[in-house]
Structures are given as structure tokens and as C-alpha cells.
């Protein structure tokens, strides 16, 4: 407990000093807000208030997948990529499936910022993404294929398989051994792997990285205003992470 208090104290100290350092910067409301928020968030990290915080309801929901079977397949596949272990939660507990679902319903899924004019040709690996399909379409097809393979090989849906059975199928996707239409299974696997890491480690405002636990596992402090006062320290700095959402309160 004494140790805990010391940590909080030094953290608060650090934030205060860094607040002073930043306070001189823009000479306006902007930094004022920043400093205020820092102090408040420090309090939230203390045990009593944390219980308060945990009571807050979250409203995660599906925006893209329409049925449980597909969503469960996605969930299990991401969990195989980033599993729960003694270090901490895996993809499912981190909310990664919700993160991916939500992304697929938005700009990412619809390729809003990508050049999607034809004609489409397969191209060389060095030429990158050349599919006529949007990412949402690639995921829909990929998930269906995962289930198809599961049924074909083990007469079960993907999410009902044993871990090693799932891995066998995922590995074949990764090695491009599964036939997909207008996209390669290796490309789908790369998207799935990348999206899983994004969901695990993105700011929790995107509905993954629940409770910032993935950041905690990794020792990444998320959003911090400034490191100017600690960056020359030799010791590794354990800093409780913060989300950019904390700037809204």
C-alpha cells in the first residue's frame, strides 16, 4: 500500500511538473484544460474511485455482423491470434471482435479512403492490395470460408473446434492454401491478424483494448501529455495508462 501511494504521489508530481512545463506553451485555454484533466485522471487511478469507474456501463454492440455464428467465428479466430494467457486477457476479453465488427461497418470496411476504381488485375505481391472487394466483403467471405473449412474437415462450425484444429485452418489461410474469390486467403489472414492487433492495442475509444489492459500488459502508457521530466531517467517508468477519452471529462 505504501508502495502504491508512493507511485501515485510521484506520478502526480510528474504530471504537475509536466503540467507547468506545458502550461507555458500555448498561453491559452487549451493547455489549461489539459492540466486540469491530468490531475483528475490521476485520482481516478486510485483504488476507491476505480470501483466507481467500473460501475460505468458500456454499450458495445454489433454494427456489421448479423448472426452469432459468424461473430463467434471471428471472435475465436482473433483469440487464436492473440490468446488469453498468464500475462493477461486475449482478443475476446479485450473486445477485439467488437472493434473489428465496428470497423467493418465504417470507413475501413467500406474502403472510403482507398482507390477502388477498376480495372482490377491480380498483380505482383510488390504491388499490394488489388482486390475489387472492400475489406467488409473480404471479411464476410473469409469468415464464411473459415466455417466452410471447419465443416468440411471436422463437421463442426469454426467456433466449436479445438484450438489446434482452428490453428490448422488458420495456418492454411496464412499459407494461401484456401481458395477464395477475388482475393487470396493469405491476404485475408493478413487483414485479420493486423485488425486483431489494432483492436487489442488501439485506444479503448474504438471499443477494443478493454480497460486498457493490452496497454498494461505491454507497459505502454497510452496518452500522456508529456515525458519531458522523466525522459532522461535511466529506470524504466511504469506509468498507469490513459485514454484520449480522458481529455473529454
Amino acid at each position, binding site marked *: 500500500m505504501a508502495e502504491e501511494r508512493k507511485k501515485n504521489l510521484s506520478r502526480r508530481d510528474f504530471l504537475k511538473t*509536466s503540467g507547468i*512545463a*506545458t502550461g*507555458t*506553451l*500555448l498561453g491559452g485555454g*487549451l493547455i489549461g484544460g*489539459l492540466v486540469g484533466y491530468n490531475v483528475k485522471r490521476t485520482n481516478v487511478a486510485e483504488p476507491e474511485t476505480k470501483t466507481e469507474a467500473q460501475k460505468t456501463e458500456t454499450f458495445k454492440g454489433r454494427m456489421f455482423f448479423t448472426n452469432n455464428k459468424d461473430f463467434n467465428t471471428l471472435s475465436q479466430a482473433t483469440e*487464436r*491470434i*492473440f*490468446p488469453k*494467457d498468464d*500475462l493477461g486477457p*486475449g482478443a475476446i476479453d479485450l473486445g477485439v471482435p467488437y472493434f473489428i465488427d465496428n470497423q467493418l461497418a465504417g470507413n*475501413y470496411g467500406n*474502403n*472510403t*479512403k*482507398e*482507390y*477502388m*476504381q477498376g480495372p482490377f*488485375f491480380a*498483380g*505482383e*505481391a*510488390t*504491388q*499490394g*492490395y*488489388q482486390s475489387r472487394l472492400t475489406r467488409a466483403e473480404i471479411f464476410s467471405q473469409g469468415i464464411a470460408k473459415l466455417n466452410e473449412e471447419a465443416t468440411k474437415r471436422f463437421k463442426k462450425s469454426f467456433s466449436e473446434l479445438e484450438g489446434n484444429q482452428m*490453428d490448422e485452418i*488458420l495456418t492454411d489461410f*496464412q499459407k494461401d492454401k484456401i481458395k477464395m474469390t477475388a482475393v487470396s486467403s493469405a491476404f485475408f489472414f493478413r487483414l485479420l491478424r493486423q485488425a486483431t492487433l*489494432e483492436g487489442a*492495442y*488501439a*485506444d479503448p475509444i474504438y471499443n477494443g483494448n478493454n480497460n486498457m489492459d*493490452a496497454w498494461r*500488459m*505491454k*507497459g*505502454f*502508457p*497510452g*496518452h*500522456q*501529455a*508529456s*515525458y*519531458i521530466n*522523466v*525522459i*532522461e*531517467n*535511466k529506470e*524504466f517508468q511504469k506509468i498507469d495508462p490513459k485514454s*484520449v477519452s480522458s*481529455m473529454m471529462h
Partner: protein
Amino acid sequence: MAKTLDKVDVVTVGVGWTGGIIAAECAKAGLKVLGLERGKERGTEDYLMVHDEFRYAIRYELMQDLSKETITFRNNRKQRALPMRQMGSFLLGENLGGSGTHWNGHTWRFLPYDFEIKSMTEKKYGKDKIPKDYFVRDWGITYDELEPYFDKFEKTAGISGDGKNPFEGKRSSDYPTPPMKKTPILKKFEEATTNLGYHPFMLPSANLSEKYKNPDGETINACQYCGFCERFGCEYGAKTSPEITVIPTARKTGNYDIRFHANVTEVLKKGDKVTGVKFIDRVSGEEFIQPADVVVLTSYVMNNAKLLMVSGIGEQYDPETGRGTLGKNYCYQILPGATGFFDEQMNVFMGAGSLGMTIDDFNGDNFDHSDLDFIHGASLSLTQTGARPIQTNPVPPDTPTWGAEFKKASIHNYTRTLNVSGQGASMPHKENYLSLDSNYKDAYGVPLLQMTYNFTDQDKALHKYLTSKTEEIMKEMGAKTVVPGNPLTDYDIVPYQTTHNVGGTTMGSEPDTSVVNNYLQHWDAENLFVVGAGNFPHNSGYNPTGTVGALAYRCAEGIIKYSKNGGSLV
């Protein structure tokens, strides 16, 4: 029917570093300047919530909207060129400030050797040192001639440095601000390179070490080492960028306007002069003609080349015949490097875009090339830019790329991994060039720019040699496992490498080999100027913007002279 607007003295296409510098200097000199920027207005107030890796670094919030425009790419002439459908190898800018908003801020002066590379190489190693398929040549300007403009850019930007690089060109003044903080991670590199007999120094930085007021009266704040720098805007106004320096300077004069959402589609030419530009308002869809006495292309390497091509200004380079200069000498960079895995945890998540130490012992001709099968080299640096968790998942070789083992190893090594990496200079080659694509068009019906590019033998040899140097340094730094980068194969547009594209609209002393003269004035149209890294006939072992900034100041001087006297400036 396009609507014709009132004429201005100077119109710039795009408002990043080059557009901003031209605007500031010309507007101060009393010229009426209009900047046409395809993107939107933005500034420091928009970066308050910027500490968000996912939105900015992964989803490229601040960068070009590729659905409207991209390039096509092929490795060689036999391949079919296909669109770069999503951002990868380089990150193109858009909106006020261009890539000057989300750059790192490493700010270099190219070496004296760079500007006279052909003469100096031949003098020292003989005429056969450069194989004939490499279009290596002098720039038509010397370092000494460009020095005052380097000085001016550094003072505008307030660059922080220690001045301890024994290999850099002569400086007329010290860095405007002292170096950044030397962290324990940087000290590891300093100690190792010193032990090996090299000459480490602090990387010249546009993340300022202290609050600074530039000669135009603009204030740049002190860096907070927040770790969200490259690919992000700075919420403190501490990373020198066009929006906090040259653009406000230009605006203060009352002689400068920017029109946003204005996508330029053509440069209009009549006889041996240009008359203005055509643009489309992205919001209303209307087409306009903007007449101007001087047109300046400041739209980055890609669109500068593309606009000349679609407007039929200059002769397109043809690798078959060797004729033409437009699109020629396109170069990129190569990144030799080594990763080291350590036992102890380090504060890798703290940092700044340009926080680093460098050695130049293997850059330019700072080392003997007599027995080497390449020319030039690379600056080798260790940077502490702020490692972020989505992008940084280092695992030792033979670790699977997913699953339980991957998770453990990537989490363990995140805070225990460092990189030493070089920016290898790439030399222009006959088969590497830019042209227009005949199949794909942008959102306005204009052909896309086509890139034909691959790494050359020179690149591969340089990469191999310098990779081994980075490996030695990493070993000396005490890493328990050192993993050198893979040997260079074909250029791949997918993984991010650098946004240091150069060439295509080169400068030079003769119209036969270059597109613009050494004031960046077009050889075929005296009131047309083309500014950017596209002016470089080859790439160096550094980031480009210091040299781009210097060239932009030189160009502005030329434009002001031209507006008084007309004619060719050389």
C-alpha cells in the same frame, strides 16, 4: 465552362513547406500570392486529441485521400502498372501544411559532395566508377552557393542541433537552438559508436529543444517528448511546420490568400509562358481558371511531375530512346539496419520525431570507396521517436507471427528492442522513372502518375555493406540478440519505408539533362517554377526537407527577381 477569376501575381499549387516558403517570401516582397490547396484548413487547435495511434498512424487521418487520387506502380517496364490502392511505402500529404504537418522533423543539409557528386567521384575514382546506366550528375549549384538558403531555412524553423558533425558542410552560423535531450537510449549509441572510432552527434531536429522566436516573429514552442510525432500534428506547436511558421508570416502581410478544396488539374501555357492554372473546387464541383503572372508548382514530387505531364510542358523521359528529362532521375531510399534485443526494459514509448543520434562516417564520400562496388552511403542513426503498441511488435527470429508464443514475445520485447538504421542514398537509374498512366484516372478524369521503379545493383551493394555496419554498432551496444535486416530484393510498395521520393523534375545547369534551372525556373516557360525534392537529381543519405527548404528560399528569391526584370534567371 470554367469560370475565370481575377489575376494574381503568384499562384502556388499546394500549401506545404514549399508553398508556404514561396508565399511568405513573395508576400513580404509585396507580391499578391494565392495558394491553391486541394485539402482543408487545419492548425494546432486540431491536434489536441492527437495522441491516438490508431486514427493517425494506422488509419492515416492527416494524409492524402487516395480514393480521389493515387499513383500506379510497376517494378519494371514489362509489368502492368497497377494503382497503389492503399497507402504504404510513402505517406503523401494533404491539407494545410502538407506532409510538413506530420513529418518527423529530421532536418539536414545535404553534403557538399551531393551537389557535385559526378565531378567529385570521377576526380577521385576515375571515370569508370559510375556505370553508364546510372544518370549521376552534378546539380548545377554548389553547397557554398546554397549555404545562405540552408541558413535561412534553419533560422525560420529554429532547428535544434549540437553542431558536432565533423562531416557536414561549412556553416555560416550555429544551429538556432541547442540540441534535444540526450536520453539513456541515445547515450548507448553514442558510447558504442565512439568506441568503434566513429563520430556521433545529435540529429538536427525540428522538434525544438526550447521556445524560439524566428526572424519573421513566429514562435515555436519547446518539445514535450510526447512520443506521438511522426504521422501526427503537434498539439503544442513545438514541431516546426508550415502552419506555425511561414503560413502565418505570409498571412500577416495582407498579400496572401489560400483557397482550400481547390484541386489543380492543369497548368495553362501559351507560347513560352504559362498563363495560370485550372482547378476544380472539390466542394462545389465547379471548374475555375486562375490567371497568374507566375505559377509555382509546390504540390510535392508526384503532382509536380504529373501536372507538367498532363499540361504537356517539357519533354517526357523515354527509357527506350534516352530522350526527354521530365520524369527522369526518380529515386527513393534504402534502409539498411539492425535490430537489437536487450535484457533490460527501456522507455521506448517516450520520445520525439527527431530525437536521435547519428554518425556520418559512412555517408556520402566520407569513407573510401576505392574497393567498393557502389558510391555514396547512408547516415546511421538511432532514433527514439516513441514506439507505439500497434506498430511495434518486435519478436526475435523464428518466433511465430501469431498465437501464444507471438503474444508473449512481442509483449516482452516491446520495451527491450532498439534499432540502428540508415537512410541509404539511391542513385538514378535508366529504368527508374515517372510517366503518365494510360489506364487509370483520378476523380477528376486526369490520368494518374505512373511510377516504374526497382532497387538497383548499386542499392543492393550499399545496403549490404551498411547493414553490416549497423550490425556491428548494435553488437557494441550490448544487445543479446542482433538481427540484421534482410538483403534487398525487389522494391515493394506495401510496407512503409520513407516519404523521401525525389527526382522527376530535376534541376541542373543545362536544359538537355534537367527540367528547371538552379532557380527552379522551368527551361521551357520562364514564369513557371517547380519546387520540391523532385528537383534532386539523386537522393542522399538524409531526409530531404532541409535541402527542399533551402531550394524553396532560393526559388522565392528568383521569383521576386523575375517579377521585376523578367527573363531567364541564369
